[in-house]
């Protein structure tokens, strides 16, 4: 196989004395959707943020597009067009939807703005009527769409999505997952998706990783992982009923 777009090798991360990542290895190739599942507190969000340099890894190496980004400051990693829609959405509440999207285009070529905006509004038509509204007044689902749209405005080579379905009604969850699929298939965006909603995520993803307590314990093709008994018992019980 060719060199991965993102490779994480032996990464450890600490919050003070608490070790959240205990040596993580993971690869993402161009064009893939890769998902990471795991229980609450396993370290999924920490891995996402460590890839973006906040907090920085204590040991290990993170390579992106052939560059070592382990010690780069967060804003410089963003300039390499690695975008994240982080946990909790983090919409700028006192900025309008349009301004939030403009913030997403911070590292993008200004000439592309109109076209990229159009694409985002095509994916998430609900944002269109809300462009002049403050981010903080959107509903949870709209905020999630805005968070993903904002990340897309940089034309990312790799898009990190941290629990985009959290707290959303099933219909909205389906819309978000459909948007991710379209992005990957039509726009060729590589996606790294963290999910608690393991069933949907594994069905959508080409490959998946399972994280337990700061370590990767399982990996494989998305649909294969779905059939694994340890995944079924730990992450899928009842999930299908949704």
């Amino acid at each position: 196989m060719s060199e991965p777009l993102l490779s994480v090798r032996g990464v450890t991360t600490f919050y003070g004395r608490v070790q959240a990542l205990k040596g993580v290895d993971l690869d993402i190739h161009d064009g893939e959707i890769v998902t990471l599942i795991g229980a609450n507190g396993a370290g999924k969000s920490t891995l996402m943020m460590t890839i973006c340099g906040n907090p920085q890894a204590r040991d290990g190496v993170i390579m992106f597009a052939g560059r070592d980004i382990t010690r780069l400051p967060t804003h410089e990693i963003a300039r390499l067009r690695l975008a994240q829609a982080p946990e909790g959405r983090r919409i700028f509440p006192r900025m309008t939807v349009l301004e939030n999207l403009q913030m997403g285009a911070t590292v993008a070529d200004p000439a592309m703005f109109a076209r990229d905006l159009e694409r985002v509004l095509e994916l998430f038509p609900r944002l269109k009527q809300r462009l002049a509204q403050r981010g903080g007044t959107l509903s949870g689902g709209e905020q999630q769409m805005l968070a993903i749209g904002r990340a897309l405005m940089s034309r990312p080579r790799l898009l990190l999505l941290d629990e985009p379905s959290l707290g959303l009604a099933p219909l909205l969850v389906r819309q978000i997952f459909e948007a991710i699929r379209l992005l990957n298939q039509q726009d060729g965006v590589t996606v790294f998706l963290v999910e608690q909603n393991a069933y949907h995520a594994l069905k959508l993803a080409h490959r998946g990783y399972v994280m337990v307590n700061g370590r990767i314990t399982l990996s494989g093709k998305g649909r294969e992982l779905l059939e694994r008994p340890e995944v079924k018992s730990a992450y899928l019980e009842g999930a299908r009923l949704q």
Partner: protein
Amino acid sequence: MEVFLQQLINGVTLGSIYGLIAIGYTMVFGIIGMVNFAHGDVFMVSAFVALIAFLVLTAWAGISSIPIALLIVLAAAMFFTSLVNWVIERVAYRPLRGSFRLAPLISAIGMSILLSNFVQVTQGPRNKSIPPMVQGEIVLYRHNDYPVTLSYKQLIIWFVTAALLVSFWYLVARTKLGRAQRACEQDQKMAALLGVDVDRTISMTFVIAAALAAVAGTMYLMYYGVVSFSDGFVPGVKAFTAAVLGGIGSLPGAVVGGLLIGLIETFWSAYFSIDYKDVAAFSVLAITLIFLPQGLFGRPDVEKV
């Protein structure tokens, strides 16, 4: 009525100066959550830069056109004061970011003392004065021999303040830098994830705050014709009061607060007692903090969880 109108004119003039300084307090507070106690002294330094620039221009360079001299003085004051504030942020505040909350405040008090002492030592402890830059006035109307006047100085202050506020508003509301600044105020971690250089944005905030203080300093010097090393303190506290009254963190609040403090001060001096005018302004600070801690334009938090 004539007294009232005259005080209105004077109060708006004074209030413009306070408003320009207050913006600096409110911007810095907005982005790093710190009351920059040295800001009043930055304002004072700018008045000295303006004074030196004016003397150099008129005495040595022999520039006699007042509008040109005033423009150059303004530019010089804005440039050097911005530089000073940029350095202050780098050496005195940035290394303390992430330290305990009081650390940058203490450092700011230290910077305040350093600036006023430095000016005292290098410029002397006495008032420094300049020959009047601008003279003349317009008599708006006269009643029973009491003229209501608008001096050219006041007109210049109004005009310059208005022009700067418009450009400043444009910068904050419509440019990429302004957006980055507001983003950093709301969520620095997210701003960085989107590619905003947070450190640089904070630096620029100090530069802009100082530039506006320098406009105030130049206007102050032109208006009163004198400045002393201790002139950072009282205008500084009043501008801070203005920022608190308007709602610290709110830019329109700083401007409105500045105007209100200017008006309160002049009306108090005219109708009650000029000796207690500073007390009036400080009472406003105390009353605001007790009864309206979020200020007039206090942030309506619309965040949903």
